[in-house]
């Protein structure tokens, strides 16, 4: 199915970017995680009428995309995913909030402004999260999470889901392709096969889980994946954090 193919290709392209060479990729993952979260908190705290403030927050993604040579096109598709719910929520604003907000300009109501700030916040928030993941491998991110004392159970499961995601996406792809070849013209799985198709995949996953457990145990697994090479914390990291924090605070409070 198209959705699965797209997911596989998105997965591959993000992985390739994250493992590529670049100053953003070389930054310590904790740096990027902290800056992303800080940026998001500040971004989301802007008042709904503060359009210029929210616009200025766009400097973070704009600078990182250009300085880091990060391809933007994959990001637009992600944006499309969240546009619909945001529009549905925001579209009511111009109708319900007709408070005029600016003297000296054409009649702009609070509702219009808040709808635009909502869309911009959505765009910048998705960009920030995308920039984090397109420059950080999952194993580096997990190391950062462990440093933040996120429990080993959760972090190990994240790594396993990430590892086996592609295996199951490909298995689901093959299953649904095989189904489509035998049921041409059908858009999705017919309800008579709902149980067996998903059920077979589920049983295979249970068997695989058993085998993976055996494999892990045979090689000394005792509750978490031992950590490997860590990226050092350099002056670039310090500069990145300082600039992000200071600029965000200035934009927010001045």
């Amino acid at each position, binding site marked *: 199915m198209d959705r699965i193919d797209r997911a596989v290709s998105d997965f591959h392209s993000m992985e390739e970017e994250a493992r590529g060479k670049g100053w953003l990729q070389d930054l310590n993952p904790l740096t990027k995680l902290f800056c992303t979260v800080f940026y998001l908190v500040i971004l989301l*705290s802007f008042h709904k009428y503060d359009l210029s403030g929210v616009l200025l927050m766009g400097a973070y993604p704009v600078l990182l995309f250009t300085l880091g040579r990060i391809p933007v096109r994959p990001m637009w598709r992600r944006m499309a995913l969240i546009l619909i719910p945001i529009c549905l929520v925001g579209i009511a604003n111009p109708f319900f909030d007709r408070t005029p907000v600016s003297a000296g300009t054409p009649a702009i109501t609070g509702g219009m402004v808040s709808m635009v700030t909502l869309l911009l916040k959505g765009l910048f928030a998705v960009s920030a999260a995308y920039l*984090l993941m397109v420059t950080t491998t999952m194993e580096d991110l997990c190391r950062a999470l462990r440093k933040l004392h996120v429990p080993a159970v959760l972090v190990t499961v994240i790594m396993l889901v990430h590892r086996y995601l592609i295996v199951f996406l490909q298995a689901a792809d093959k299953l649904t392709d095989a189904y489509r070849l035998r049921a041409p013209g059908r858009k999705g799985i017919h309800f008579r096969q709902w149980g067996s198709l998903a*059920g077979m995949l589920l049983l295979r996953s249970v068997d695989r889980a058993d085998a993976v457990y055996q494999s892990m145990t045979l090689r000394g697994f005792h509750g978490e994946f031992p950590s490997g090479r860590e990226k050092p914390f350099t002056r670039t990291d310090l500069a990145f954090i300082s600039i992000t924090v200071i600029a965000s605070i200035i934009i927010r409070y001045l």
Partner: protein
Amino acid sequence: MHMADALVSPAVAGVMYACSAVAAGFSIRGLRGGDLNRSIPLMGVMGAFVFAAQMINFSIPGTGSSGHLCGGMLLSTLLGPYAGFLTMTVILLVQCLLFADGGLMALGCNVWNMGFYGCFIGGFLIWRAFVGKAPTRGRIIAASIVGSVVSLLLGAFSVTLETLASGITELPFAVFIRFMLPIHLVIGLVEGLITAAVLVFIFEARPGLLQGGGPDGGGGRMKAPAVLAILAAATLVTGGLLSHLASSDPDGLEWSVEKVTGSTEVEGGGSVGEWAAGVQDNTALLPDYAFRDSGKGTSFSGIFGALVVLALCFVIGLLLRKPEVKPETEGEGG
């Protein structure tokens, strides 16, 4: 039902992160009683399965559209509510990070809205009520449908409250809810049918998987006080948010806290003071505050200036970036 970051304020995001973290901590503790090492690969691999299964289109007969599997109930039924909830948490995190399905700040909300209700309410309480230890085809179908519908309705309700409490939308509560609930009722029915189909298949192929065979004993060790604690937390959150909507007067908030817990202090994590402060920060973003700095934020010159700054950032970025590194030619592979 995945919420984007733009739909939550930092305060609401923080509160929901806290609730989800409490539920996750609870679940990890619950797992320790069983075989934790064994449950880790099970959660990982099953998580990947549910992730992939969510992408399969299940066509709904008689309509032209398709439904999807959510997986919360499925995971909880097969792995137990603790392992199921942790797996859902990871699935939602990976969806958010890799596919922008849901925001990073909104993750706490999404974990609660989809993971908590699906695993603890639908996959545990309702499953137990209908199926107990004696599953039959009919009971499995009934439990799946009722569990999915209830979890989805609760989730939709929470999404509405969280969005409204964040001051994001001007939609009145009644309109919002009248829009959300019927849609999620239908989605819940479809999901329930898909979940039922899969669980019936498993029941007939490998019944042992369904009978509390999960690594945490299918939540068998989950005791009534634990269930009550979770329900109390859920009530506290939804009650607190409701009361906040009813009145932005902090007294109203403390009133609702007192009513629920019987005291003015919340035991365990976080004092009422911290929580109320968080809500009050949130209150600052409500329409009452609307005119505080609307002049600067929405003036034409302000907006124009911001756009100029953005354009400058773009140009500076292009000028300052390092020259492109040509990819190294790799040895044979693939």
